[in-house]
């Protein structure tokens, strides 16, 4: 337990990467969009995708975290399992922080009718259709899934190195191409789209959970055998 707190401290020393930079990105994007919404006419709603910048940032944070901290942690005789658990906790905390932030601002945006300018930065139809709890869960799952996908990639890179990354990317592209070809060949695109359309946002988010779990298991398996 003591060692996990050491890992938490190790990560938390980097408040810039976990909190400040993503917060700055989020609010900078928000500021720009808000300014734009003031300048354009307020006759119709303005939709932006600015919020995706944070999701992308969290993805990148997951990709770089192992490379940045794993060699130091193992060098300081920390167990791989402790490093893994500590990193999962810090990723979860970071996800919860941004989920809460977005959740709060979404409610504010709704109350103020889009900050008085009909801007949709945090609050969207469909995405925010569910109950408050569902809205919260949706973002939480989205962030966790994104972070741990990045974490899986960086664990894979640590375990198999450059050659492994290259090979992995090739295999991934190959399988992806085959799957898309098959989907095309058997003309199942229509049913896929209607499946998405028939589900609410949070229902689709629930479907991400088993994938997130797989990323976690995969990351742990690879970090266990990773060397420095």
């Amino acid at each position: 337990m003591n060692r996990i707190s050491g890992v938490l401290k190790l990560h938390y020393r980097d408040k810039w990467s976990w909190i400040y930079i993503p917060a700055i990105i989020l609010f900078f994007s928000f500021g720009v969009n808000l300014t734009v919404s003031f300048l354009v006419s307020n006759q119709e709603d303005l939709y932006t995708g600015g919020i995706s910048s944070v999701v992308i940032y969290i993805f990148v944070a997951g990709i770089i975290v192992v490379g940045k901290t794993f060699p130091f942690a193992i060098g300081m005789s920390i167990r791989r399992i402790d490093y893994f658990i500590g990193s999962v906790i810090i990723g979860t905390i970071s996800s919860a922080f941004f989920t809460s932030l977005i959740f709060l601002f979404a409610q504010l945006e709704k109350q103020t009718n889009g900050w008085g300018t009909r801007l949709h930065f945090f609050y969207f139809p469909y995405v925010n259709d569910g109950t408050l709890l569902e809205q919260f869960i949706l973002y939480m799952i989205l962030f966790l899934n994104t972070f741990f996908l990045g974490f899986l990639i960086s664990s894979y890179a640590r375990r198999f190195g450059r050659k492994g990354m290259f090979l992995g990317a090739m295999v991934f592209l190959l399988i992806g191409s085959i799957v898309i070809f098959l989907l095309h060949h058997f003309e199942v695109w229509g049913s896929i789209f209607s499946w998405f359309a028939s589900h609410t946002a949070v229902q689709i988010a629930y479907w991400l959970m088993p994938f997130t779990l797989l990323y976690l298991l995969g990351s742990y398996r690879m970090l266990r055998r990773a060397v420095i």
Partner: protein
Amino acid sequence: MKNVIEVKQLNKSYEKFNAIHDTSFALQANKIYGLLGRNGAGKTTLMKMITAQIFPTSGDLKVFGEGPYENANVLSQICFIKESQKYPDHYNILDALDVSKSIFPNWDVNFSRSLIKDFNLPLKRRIKKLSRGMLSAVGIVIGLASRAPLTIFDEPYLGLDAVSRGLFYDRLMEDYVEHPRTVILSTHLIDEVSSLLEHILVMDNGKLIIDQDAEELRGKAFTVTGQASKVEAFLIGKETVHREPFGGLLSATVIHSENGSDQKQATASGLEISPVSLQQLVVHLTSGRSEQKEVNTK
């Protein structure tokens, strides 16, 4: 006495390259060990296996009586400072020390502060921006202040000036006397540390070629110099590690024989005898030119 490290027939191979070959040894508690050898001899590989940073290909490895891999009992007692230790990019010295404090159970804050002062380290400076010498000093501070029961320094002084190196040896000895622990020091500067070392391990080409008490090892060999013919006559039937002719003279480093009458015999034949330093002995033994590679360590 219980052994801190027990290694039996340890092997580590990378594809076609054998980094560690059939190595066996045991280290006792509370001694200072010197792990010596040339670049690429396998020292770092060996230490990385002891600390579970890399995995052995085969063989048995016990640290504090248990396997080190993913073992909290074992790993919490180890501090391994290697020359290539990486720190997260954004860390300053204070960050590294604070994190070390929460990782190593025996960390001594006051000791770390006094070491920081000794080495003139700027706490707020980013580790990325430090000079090579300062980076080494950070590792030394962490290694000493961690007071880990097994502390391993792998080439800890890279880029460090002579004054700081002296400081390191002094602080290590002072603290070792008060808080005995097992220390492994891997180094090239053998003469500098030879007075600290109680036991010597020498590796060459992935094999352990010497595992012996430092005192014994020092008394193990001597150099004779004299006319080539006389020296050659003297060398018959003896274990010679190195010979160096110059002009009509020959200088040879000889391993003492069991009965210890070698030196008398040499003096009798009018040869000059001089002691061989640890560094010279190790250089001879690992230079690849030695006539007898394996020193019989009884």
